[in-house]
């Protein structure tokens, strides 16, 4: 579904990604791991078209999207749940969800999808008229994921959905990510929570200083000596 080859990306004169290559197949849950500053978020932003200078190929459903502007990429079915949630703080919960479904197909099913999102996150139904900026961190993350689902994405990209959440909530968010994937949405996930994500993903890639170093299935990586040493501290 998504094939990335020779991806190089830079902010002004600083090159962040070097020949990154990976693949996400239909229906998979793929995890991108790496230390802070390894280039995970940059990789995701390059896919979504928000990094201005990028070269290589990013093939989505057979079409090269590397030169498309960000909104076109979103319209093709790649939905990005960004790091730090990036909700519209002065719009209500409901409006945030509505704005997630602007494309014709998603718009046609708007009411239906909103209902599903409310079932997934009952707290959002309760706070539907509150401003997004006034929600707690966990609720904001739920809204960000819900807003992403509103687009009926073919590929859902999630950037550290567990960031800054209490352990109980983290677990809950991961269950939901798994559930979303089970319902047929292809997921590309960036996470710091290595053990938990390797346990639930189909395949994983490790980014190190802007280069892809290790890849394999979740269990392969869980038993990898380097991973154990660098990320699990065993």
């Amino acid at each position, binding site marked *: 579904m998504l094939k990335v080859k020779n991806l190089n990306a830079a902010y002004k004169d600083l090159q962040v990604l070097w020949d990154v290559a990976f693949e996400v197949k239909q229906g998979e849950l793929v995890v991108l791991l790496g230390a802070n500053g390894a280039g995970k978020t940059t990789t995701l932003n390059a896919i979504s078209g928000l990094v201005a200078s990028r070269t290589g190929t990013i093939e989505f459903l057979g079409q090269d999207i590397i030169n498309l502007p960000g*909104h076109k990429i*979103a319209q093709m079915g790649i939905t990005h749940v*960004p790091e730090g949630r*990036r909700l*519209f703080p*002065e719009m209500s919960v409901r409006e945030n969800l*509505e*704005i997630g479904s*602007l494309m014709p197909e998603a718009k046609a099913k708007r009411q239906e999808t909103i209902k599903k999102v409310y079932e997934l996150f009952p707290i959002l139904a309760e706070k539907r008229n509150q401003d997004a900026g006034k929600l707690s961190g966990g609720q904001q993350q739920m809204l960000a994921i819900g807003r992403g689902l509103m687009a009926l994405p073919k590929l859902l990209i999630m950037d550290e959905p567990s960031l800054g959440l209490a352990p109980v909530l983290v677990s809950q968010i991961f269950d939901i990510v798994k559930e979303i994937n089970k319902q047929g949405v292809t997921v590309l996930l960036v996470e710091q929570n290595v053990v938990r994500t390797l346990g639930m993903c189909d395949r994983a890639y490790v980014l190190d200083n802007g280069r892809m170093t290790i890849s394999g299935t979740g269990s392969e990586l869980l038993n990898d000596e380097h991973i154990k040493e660098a990320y699990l501290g065993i």
Partner: protein
Amino acid sequence: MELLSQTIICGILLGGMYALIAIGMTLIMGVMNIVNLAHGALVMVGMYVTYVCAQEFGVDPYLGMFVAMLVLFFLGCLIQKFMINRLVEVESILPENQVLLTVGIMLVLTEGIRLIFKSDYRSVVTSYSSDTLYFSGMAISVPMLTGFFIAMLFTFLLHLFLTRTDLGKSIRATAQDRDAAVYMGINASKITMITFGLGAALAAAGGSLLLPLFYLWPDIGHLFTAKSFIITILGGLGSTGGAIVGGLILGIAESLGATYISMGYKDVVGLVIFLLVLLFLPGGVRSLVKRWQA
């Protein structure tokens, strides 16, 4: 007592029309993150369009207003797309340069109009220009009353547009987080262009409503830039409701100043309030409300 209430009512009516112009400015400021110093010039151009419609083709100013809104919508879109947006795309240029560019646009518009119409004072006279309603001892001008209600109607329609339609929500989303809007599949550059056009159209509407009340000359734009600036600061940046409150405060203050100090000091009163607000209430009326809620 009647003088005072008449003055205040007159101020409210005037303020409603000012508010419409300022709402156009807030709208642009929200999405572009820049102060549009050409806003008053857009008001002025809108007034000239309405003036030409009335003078050359005998179109009533309240109908000419729609022509002016259409013309200014396209003018605003063009300015944003081919001038301001080009500066946004070039990273090496400071954001301040966009503001400087709006000053340039203001000068070109003002001098362009002067080239065509000279600096003469002009006014539109209609059959109802001097009509007055008498109401328990108070005299209220009909064009003022009409202007106020049309301005409030437009404000209400804009509110509906921004809260009920997808395009309106996209405008608000782009103003609140441009990158996140792109994640939603919103074409942010197109939205910015439409918003600029809409802001310019509201400026034209406000100007046209004031046309029966003001003399028109090319430099009148500066007056409106100052007024919208004062109102936006008073009401708190980027808030439609705030712009209405700010507009009413400015209208009433000017009206009181004109009645009790001198007609000639009317604009000074507004500027003094502006300075006082900047010094003592930099967040505008909105921050007062927040403080009171907390």
